């Protein structure tokens, strides 16, 4: 479990909602789907809107500020609105605790 940091408990995030947390200096949105938890960048690449406060569907989240939309598994922009995507992070769920892994800046693949 190296690289994973504890961010909270399962019950901290209501179903189909997100909550933000800072891990390794980076703002992350952790989102709860019916199928489990996912994590993406917390700030929208458009103008920094809080993606943890977005509306969550089965497969994507919509930024609350101007409606850019991102795929929750790949971080890719969805639909015509959004110009660029967000990063995704691994989430681990163990004994009711949630852990997120944020690779050190510069190491992840382009």
């Amino acid at each position: 479990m190296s690289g994973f940091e504890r961010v909270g408990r399962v019950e901290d995030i209501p179903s189909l909602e997100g909550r933000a947390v800072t891990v390794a200096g980076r703002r992350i949105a952790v989102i709860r789907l019916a199928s489990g938890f996912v994590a993406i960048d917390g700030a929208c690449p458009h103008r920094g809107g809080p993606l943890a406060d977005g509306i969550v569907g089965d497969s994507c989240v919509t930024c609350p500020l101007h409606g850019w939309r991102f795929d929750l598994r790949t971080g890719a922009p969805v639909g015509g609105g959004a110009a660029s995507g967000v990063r995704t992070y691994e989430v681990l769920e163990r004994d009711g605790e949630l852990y997120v892994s944020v690779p050190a800046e510069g190491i992840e693949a382009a």
Partner: protein
Amino acid sequence: MSASPEPVDLLVVGGGIAAQAVCEAVLERQARTRVMLVCGEPRLPYDRVKLSSLLAGEVDPLALQLRPDDWYADRGVEAVLGRRAVALDPDAGICELDDGRSISFDRCVLATGSDPLMPPLPGLDCAAVHPFRGPEDCEAILAAAAGARRAAVIGGGLLGLEAAYGLATHGCPVSVVHLMGHLMERQLDEAAAALLVPAMERLGVEILLERRTEEIVGDGRVEGLRFAGDERLDCDLVVVSVGISPRTDLAAIAGLEVERGIVVDDRMTTSHPRVLAVGECAQHRGVVYGIVAPILDQAEVLAAALAEDDGSYDGSVPSAKLKVMGVDVVSAGDPEGDRAVVAQEDESYRKLILTQGRATGAVLVGDTRGAELLVDAVRTRRAVDDPLALLQEASRASAGDLPDTAQVCNCNGVCKGAILEEIRSSGLGSTAEVVAATRAGSGCGSCKPVVAELLALERGGAAEEPAYLCPCRKQTREQLAAVCREREIDSVSGLASACGAGRDCGACKPGLAYLVSEVNGNRHREERHARFINDRVHANIQRDGTFSVVPRIRGGVTSPDELRRIADVADRYQVPMVKVTGGQRIDLLGVRKEQLPAIWDELGMPSGHAYAKAVRTVKTCVGTDFCRFGLGDAIGLGIELERRMEGLYTPHKVKSAVAGCPRNCSEAYVKDIGLVAVEGGWEIYVGGAAGSTVRKGDLLDRVDRQDDALRLSLAFLQHYREHADYLERTYAFVERAGIDSVRQAVLDPERQALLLERYAIAKAAADPDPWREGGDPVHPRQFADLDSEPAESPS
């Protein structure tokens, strides 16, 4: 018979869909024809098909009339209402009415329709035994249903099922009694009919098949039905729907050839060259048609015959596109043939029937995609090599794949070619225009999506789509509301599991959440994941992710004490900006999410809903309290109006104002709802705007008393809540619906009473102050992220 001095060119005896179709077709060809229309019923021609919706409470009686009053006057059509033709002398060209009047005519059209068939059962004369044919029947059935413990519908054909549906929607338990082994045997086969059963059971409709009714038991009042074999059903209301009997008495008196109906040839002419017949009273090549589409074809040919143009009627392949018990059904041609292919799933059934290698019938239940293509194949008896391939092709077909001859609108008999032609020649740009110009989509409305698709196609995809509430699943608000009602769904996730809406991208969930709350009179199951962030934390999100706090200051009237608390809060929480808003209240801007509960607690003022698609402000002016020009108590009425409306969610925000005189200092003319005091009363304006769109409101009405102004405002609010699309402001809604239709809905005393009743139900269950969740959150982290905690208020 002695005749009136001036003979009319054309006398039309009738007053139903057929009579109207004749008037339209004849005047289209020969605009100067002098037409007299004798309507046996005391009203202008109306849409009988919509009586089913009337019974189910889905439309308004006023909406049934086919054309407005002016239509007749403008075209010189003299309509005689509530009079019957009782004698007809074709040789002399004279017709006598039941008031003794004689009309002389050049040509005459009989469009006398049919009577409901009433089988000679003992007990038929009991009270609360009704046919289902006219508006009076609907009224009588509904009145009887109100106190009924159980209703029985004799006849499980299309009409019988519609009657049962109507009764069930009013909460009346219903049994459908049918002679045959499955329902709707004229249109459906057994497997297709079986798919209707679960929908009926969900509505609490019981189905009794293979029952021959022998007696209506009762002594003046219905007590039950007795079937062959001595089985009994207890009921206190009976609707009889077993078929029609063409009205041929007048034709018989005139000496015309009559069999089951009035016999006509391929030019719709009876045995006397001066008299023609059309509609349910006419029999062509041995067939009497009991649905609308053939009637329209007949009227076209009839008009051609009168104008001495070419044209002959070769009969119609009956086809119908219906909603039965909330399930979409399309049937065309004959449900039996010598070969058939079927594609069946849990909730759908699609079948194509062939006879000697040609398409002769189609049945679609639950999934009617590509219906136009299949119906066209049946109508043209297309030779089909690979029927399964055709069935599959149809389910993928878009409007572009249809042949020009394919009939898009069954109600008005409009084909694809005619729609495209009209779009091109008149340069139409919106679905509403196409509907108005071609009448396609103005009947039951089920073909409107196809009309929209054709428009888009013609305009290179640039035209509007129908307003889908869930674009991913192409579901409109009307469709989703129907799903909610039929399946008694009370939550967004319930709707998602019923039809997938809101699943994919989730962006439409706030719209669905509003719909679910509206349909359930706010007795829905609230789910916060379906709400925009503003409605999860009851504050408006700002560009930097902070929030703004606007407490309710009714009518813009505050007090030193409130102002002091606002000032204290601003100090204590270092609120970056305090601002007077354009809505006559005060905004605390730049507040962090975690601070919200503590700030609300210290303010001790309720939420102003400045963040929600909900009732916002009622602005007022000083009115009679202080102003030397004031004519009405603007502040008093404004505060009262705000109290009565606050807490209600709406399709889009609703802002109001009350002005003490027409100087309009509170800008009431440009509000969603604006009240203006005038000498001796109040004017109520609706649909005003002064944001990105500027529009003066339409005058809804002028009333004498403050109470009435309040009542009309609330009735309008409820009408808007029920009928506007999500995110449609009143200025767009009133513009789209037209102020006349809004007036009809809001001013009619009965409809107004119902609107106010539903308003009261919704208001009683609405949360007047969501800020109370600050002290009692719906989730421990409602106001916090994973690494922050809600601030404690010092009090």
